[in-house]
C-alpha cells in the first residue's frame, strides 16, 4: 500500500470499558450460552466480543462492556463463577475500544496487517482484534488508547458526515 490515507466511513470508540476474559479448556463444552445469559440478565451492552481457539484447543472469550461499578463487578464475578467448565475468569478495567467501518475493506487485502504493524511499531499491542470484510475492531489497555487513535487517524481518513443508512451494509 502507498502512503495515501485509506478512506473509512466511521470510527466508533469507547474509552472506558470493563473487559471480561474467560478461558475454557480444550475439548470441553464451553457453555458460552450460559455466559451470555448472565450478561443478558444484567442488561449489559456488549461493546466488543470475540472468541477464538488456541492451537491446543483452549477457547478464550473476550467481552467488553461499559465500565462496571465495583458492586456490579462483584456480582458479575459471582454469577460467572457458576458457569460450568471455565478454567479462568478475569475482569480488567479500564480498557478501550476502537471500531472502524469501511464497506470496501474486503477489497483491500493487507489492511489488517497494515494497522497491526503500525500499532506494534509504536509499542502498542492490542489486547484483541476482530476483523471482518467491512470493519476492524481493537481492544487496547486504556493507557495506550490515545496513541492508538492517533495512529488510526494517521492511516485512515473519514468523511465529515456519516450516513446512518450505510450502517447495515456489513457483509460477512
Amino acid at each position, binding site marked *: *500500500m502507498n502512503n495515501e490515507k485509506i478512506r473509512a466511513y*466511521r470510527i466508533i470508540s469507547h474509552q472506558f470499558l470493563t473487559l471480561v*476474559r474467560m*478461558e475454557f479448556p480444550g475439548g470441553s463444552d464451553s*457453555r*458460552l*450460552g450460559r455466559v*451470555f*445469559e448472565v*450478561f*443478558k440478565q*444484567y*442488561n*449489559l451492552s*456488549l*461493546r*466488543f*466480543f*470475540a*472468541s*477464538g*481457539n*488456541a*492451537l*491446543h484447543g*483452549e477457547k*478464550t*472469550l*473476550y467481552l467488553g462492556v461499559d465500565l462496571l461499578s465495583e458492586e456490579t463487578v462483584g456480582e458479575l464475578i459471582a454469577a460467572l463463577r457458576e458457569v460450568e467448565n471455565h478454567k*479462568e475468569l*478475569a475482569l480488567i478495567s479500564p480498557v478501550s475500544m476502537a*471500531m472502524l*467501518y469501511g464497506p470496501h475493506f*474486503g477489497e483491500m*487485502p*493487507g*489492511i*489488517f*496487517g*497494515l494497522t*497491526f*504493524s503500525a500499532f*506494534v*511499531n509504536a509499542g502498542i*499491542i492490542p*489486547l*484483541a*482484534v*476482530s*476483523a*471482518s*470484510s*467491512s*470493519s476492524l*475492531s481493537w481492544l487496547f489497555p486504556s493507557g495506550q488508547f490515545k496513541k492508538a487513535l492517533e495512529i488510526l487517524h494517521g492511516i485512515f481518513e473519514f468523511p465529515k458526515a456519516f450516513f446512518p443508512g450505510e*450502517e*447495515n451494509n*456489513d*457483509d*460477512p
Partner: protein
Amino acid sequence: MPSRVRASPVLDAMTISVSGDDPLALRNVFEVLGEGKVNIWLGVEIKNKEDFMDITLCFNPQETDYATTLIQNHYPGIKFSLIKSVRIISAFPFRDNAEVAFRFIKTLEDNLVPVLALSTSLSSISCLVPQEYCSIAIESLETTFGLSNKNS
C-alpha cells in the same frame, strides 16, 4: 432483533498461536500476508492468560496454499493448523445487544453446532462454523429470530 442471517462462501481457516513476548513475529506474518495480497475474510486475535496471542484467519480456499507457503517460507518457526471448509454465519443487525448474543449462541449450542470463532462488527454478530453445520446453523438461527427467508 436480527432481520437477516447470511453465510459467507466456503472458506478455509488457519489458527496460529504466537508468544505475546514476540509481537513482531505476528506483525511479520500479517505483513507477509498483506504484501502477498491475501484477502482475510475474518480475523480474530486474542491474548490469553498465558500471554499467548491466538489468531484465527479465514481465506478463500484458492488462497490457502499460497498463504501457508508464504508463512512457511518466511517464518518456518511459526506453528499453525488449518481447518478446511468453514463458513462465516452472520446475523444483522446486532447493536451491542446481549439478548441477541445470548439467543445466537444458545441456538448454536442447542443444535450442537461447533463454533470455531466468534466476533462482532458495527452491525453484526458472526460465528465461524464447519461447512457441514452451515445449513443447520442458518435454519436454526432463522427460526430463533423468526425469519422465514433463506439467505444462504
